[in-house]
């Protein structure tokens, strides 16, 4: 099953390159078959437990190992479904928005890179996946043409620097232990100087690639410059890849003293991201930049949950971490598609363009508001589930008043930037006239993930159970 999930996007891409005319069709077909396969993998994992594969039939240590646990299969399913949704949106709008033909093979490669990353448990193979992901993301950003070249180049250079840092760390670990397989490495791990420095280097590289505060500077420009479907994919999925590796490193490899030293820093960075990202989102005059800054802020929640998980070792924080990732992926896809649709129809990049959008484009605005509700953490959305797990974990630890207050403040900030857009949309006195008649289908497609993130509440119990025991 894992092989199918890896081979299908690969073959799909190759055929798209050979016959560019049928590329959109192939992309949609690949994404839908992959979604079904991912669903089957999820069932398989929940019935028979974790699936492990040693590639090429060599013994452990020599071979690359892949592992599908329930978290990986959930993330693969999310990737495939979002690919399908964004593919449909791009198919519905590619004539109007002049989306280049390069989008289809590139998005399919993105799916391959992400699937390979969620499955891999080998440090060097993870590097190759990171590289694949980085280059595909840059190529996708540059689809916007000349105006995107500068952000894309910045993204490329920083992403390469991040990869290089990660690779240096892998080289040091290989020199010290002689293995690359994470499970084998974890058994031999010693908390000494080389391993600490390797971990620090890898963390630096991954934080840069995942746009975690304070290394987030490239993200708003790059995500705002990309076409709407690309921004949705980048914000929803691509930044989560390095975050996943970061969690693998610190949860599976790092020793107790190393974890204790770094946990407050992670939590602090997360909090700073929440507050400063929120303030930036509140101040920016451009609609897409606001959504992009909100990604920086929301990644802060994941970082904060990781820091608290490392510090208190409480399974609720693990659940909070992955719930944030899932809820944010769905909500952010909806936000970017809705904002992309509104700015394309109303013709403007500034946030003032949204004026009166509740009248002119009610569906898209509804999608934005619903997704924004999850970003704020209103019950009963996925964002609320995550935040509730975080608060409950903090409450159970006791005496964590500072963090509780900080989270409340962050919630108010996110409410402020979401409502800033929503209030403008309800300013019906002088609405911005659409350039052409709004189209229904893309707006519905933007609404789908927003509804899905609220539907997460229906499955809150199994999700919480699953992610609590997982924690990687």
């Amino acid at each position, binding site marked *: 099953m*894992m*092989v199918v999930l*890896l*081979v299908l996007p*690969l*073959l799909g*891409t*190759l055929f798209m*390159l*050979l016959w*560019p005319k049928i590329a959109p069709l192939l992309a949609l077909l690949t994404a839908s078959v992959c979604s079904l396969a991912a669903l089957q993998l999820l069932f398989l994992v929940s019935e028979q437990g974790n699936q492990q*594969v*040693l*590639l*090429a*039939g*060599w*013994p452990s*240590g*020599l*071979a*690359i190992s892949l592992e599908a646990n329930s978290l990986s299969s959930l993330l693969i399913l999310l990737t495939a479904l979002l690919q399908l949704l964004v593919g449909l949106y791009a198919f519905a709008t590619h004539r109007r928005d002049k989306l*280049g033909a*390069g989008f289809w*093979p*590139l998005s399919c*490669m993105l799916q*391959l890179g992400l699937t*390979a990353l969620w499955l891999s448990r080998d440090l*060097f*193979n993870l590097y*190759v*996946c990171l*590289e*694949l992901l980085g*280059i*595909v993301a*840059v*190529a996708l950003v*540059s*689809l916007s043409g000349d105006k995107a*070249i500068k952000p*894309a180049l910045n993204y490329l250079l920083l992403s390469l620097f991040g990869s290089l840092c990660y690779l*240096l760390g892998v080289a*040091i670990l*290989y*020199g*010290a*232990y*002689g*293995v690359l397989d994470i499970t084998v490495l974890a058994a031999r791990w010693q908390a*000494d*100087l*080389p391993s600490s*420095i*390797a971990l*620090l*280097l890898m963390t630096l590289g991954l934080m840069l690639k995942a746009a975690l505060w304070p290394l987030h500077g490239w993200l708003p420009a790059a995500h705002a410059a990309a076409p709407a479907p690309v921004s949705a994919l980048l914000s929803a999925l691509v930044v989560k890849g390095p975050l996943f590796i970061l969690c693998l490193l610190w949860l599976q490899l790092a020793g107790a003293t190393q974890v204790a030293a770094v946990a407050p820093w992670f939590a602090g960075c997360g909090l700073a991201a929440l507050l400063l990202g929120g303030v930036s989102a509140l101040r920016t005059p451009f609609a897409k930049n606001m959504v992009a800054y909100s990604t920086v802020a929301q990644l802060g929640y994941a970082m904060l949950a990781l820091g608290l998980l490392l510090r208190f070792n409480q399974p609720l924080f693990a659940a909070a971490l992955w719930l944030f990732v899932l809820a944010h992926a769905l909500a952010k896809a909806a936000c970017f598609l809705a904002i992309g649709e509104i700015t394309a129809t109303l013709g403007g990049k500034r946030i003032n363009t949204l004026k009166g959008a509740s009248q002119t484009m009610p569906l898209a605005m509804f999608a934005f508001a619903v997704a924004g509700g999850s970003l704020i953490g209103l019950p009963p959305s996925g964002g609320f589930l995550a935040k509730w797990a975080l608060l409950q974990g903090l409450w159970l630890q006791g005496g964590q008043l500072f963090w509780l207050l900080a989270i409340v403040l962050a919630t108010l900030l996110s409410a402020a930037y979401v409502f800033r857009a929503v209030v403008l949309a309800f300013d019906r006195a002088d609405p911005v006239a659409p350039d052409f008649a709004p189209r229904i289908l893309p707006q519905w497609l933007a609404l789908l993930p927003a509804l899905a993130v609220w539907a997460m509440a229906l499955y809150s119990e199994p999700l919480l159970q699953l992610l609590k025991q997982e924690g990687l």
Partner: protein
Amino acid sequence: MRLLLFDAILCLLLLTLALASILSRQLAHAVILYIAFGLMMALAWARLAAPDLALAEAAIGAGLTGALCFSALAHQQPQLKPDVLNWPKRLWPAVFVLLMLGGVLAALLQLPPSASQLIAVTQAGIGNSGVSHPVTAVLLNFRSWDTLLELVVLLLALLGARQVAPEVKPATSWPLSLGWSRLLAPMVILLAGYLLWAGASQPGGAFQAGALLAAGAVVLRLNQQLSWLSWSNFWIRLLIVSGVLVFVLMALLAILLTPGNTDVVWLRWPPHLAAGIILLVELFATLAIALTLTLLVAGEPASTGAEHGCGEGA
């Protein structure tokens, strides 16, 4: 003793060339110094007993990257000058790099001197891998999934570069360089074929052979030859894609050929067929790498050339 002196001079030269390339005021000078740096780097790899890396560095680091930088310079406006940074702006990156360097050096000095146990495991497994050169065995058998993904990364680099590729202006070439490039072409093909074949038992293999082939093709392309070599030509596209495609098809075929086995193992070559499969995969990978690198470095042919090419429009 003599080799120690050689190593010391090589290290000094590497550092000097790197600094000179970074601090150079003119981009053209920086590129020339960078090419020289690549050559010295290849020597350094050879001294570190990594001839595979030395070959790749000489072909890609010194050769193709240099050509790429020069063709990028040719597209720049002539009046464009690099921004001169003031000292405080240079200081922060320098401090950061020195800190990182210190950390890495401290870690490297603490590393155990003993070789990894994996080397013993590799030696044990090499009999069943189909080749006798350990680097090739690792690349195309033990960790073939990495290599497959690396080939995808290379393909992606081409796709990404095509998004932002500038218009190529038709230019005329110099008769002497045209004659030389034609004279060199058969030699390059012969040498690349040898490197590919040698990869089974000694340093060499698909990446090196492909890079060499690409270098020959780039020289021809810079002299306005090979106008049929463009992305819009279906057969060229097929060859570029074939590097990954043959790899995947072979892996699927290997699954079919494994008899009486219920559990499917991805990318496992049957031992008696491994040598043939690896040679086939490497052959197509070489062609794909050569064409990808050529298109990456030289870009599409000028529009006058594309018209009488045999390509069908995409």
